[in-house]
């Protein structure tokens, strides 16, 4: 028999989370309805469709774009997007001369109100390690070829400050309305790991 009766956590991670949830529900520290509402919010209401609205608005409204680039947090809030992990926002604009790329080397900081929760690769070691040291190689892995004459700027997000990329409006989209433009904007284009094309 072991010299102590210390219980090891279950090796099954799902069981261990279930145990914690049961305990916190029993103790009244959380409520089941709250947990369900949180999941529903981030699965259905908060995601890159929000950022796409911001981008399409900036492409079609020069005054909005100026506000967005000079003070992003209130400009984004104009469209109703604010709150956790987006309290202090900076939007960086891609141009023919500059390509911007976002990372969080320390963890997973990401602008939740406009992009939702980050993909696994954004939170995983390879991207966090390499985006700052060899961004062009990282971009090439995403199929993005940035010319030598274009400056690449990498923005390392923090707990306090979150970035979003304003991608370039694709050529050939002059006739599209704002909803059609929104549909062109992808999550990765707002991280900087994709360029946009007219469909």
């Amino acid at each position, binding site marked *: 028999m072991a010299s102590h009766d210390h219980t090891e956590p*279950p090796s099954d*991670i*799902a069981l*261990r989370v279930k*145990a914690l949830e049961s305990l*916190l529900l029993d103790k009244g520290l959380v409520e089941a309805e709250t947990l*369900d509402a949180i999941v529903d919010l981030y699965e259905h209401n908060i995601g890159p469709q929000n950022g796409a609205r911001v981008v399409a608005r900036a492409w079609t409204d020069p005054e909005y774009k100026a506000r967005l680039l000079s003070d992003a947090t209130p400009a984004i809030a104009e469209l109703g997007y604010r709150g956790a992990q987006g309290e202090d926002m900076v939007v960086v604009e891609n141009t023919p001369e500059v390509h911007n790329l976002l990372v969080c080397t320390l963890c997973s900081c990401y602008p939740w109100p406009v992009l939702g929760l980050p993909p696994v690769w954004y939170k995983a070691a*390879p991207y966090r*390690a390499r985006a700052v040291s060899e961004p062009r190689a990282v971009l090439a*892995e995403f199929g993005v070829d940035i010319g030598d004459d274009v400056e690449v700027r990498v923005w390392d997000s923090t707990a306090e400050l979150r970035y979003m990329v304003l991608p370039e409006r694709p050529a050939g989209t002059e006739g599209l309305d704002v909803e059609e433009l929104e549909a062109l904007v992808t999550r990765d284009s707002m991280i900087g790991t994709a360029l946009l094309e007219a469909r």
Partner: protein
Amino acid sequence: MNGIHDLGGMHGMGPIDAETDEPIFHAEWERRMFALMLATFANGSFKGDEFRHAIERMEPAEYLNTSYYEHWLHSLERLLVEKGQVAPGELEAAWKNAANAADAEGAA
């Protein structure tokens, strides 16, 4: 803190593994873990920097070998015990109960 989490510029991490049409969560336990963290954060059980710091205090090899929401689980368990919201014995009892319930389900 200069720990394993400070990954910027580190070599040897290999290629980026981007999943096509990635779901927001990959398992039900990830959904529950996400919600448990946000709910306990919202009720003031801990501060955001304390949550991150508890992840950064993970043993380095374990940090690299575990997934993102496993980091969250380690951090939340540790903080709730350190803050006195949960007694260590309560957590161990909850593990036993969950394991027993799973065994009973498996035997049924």
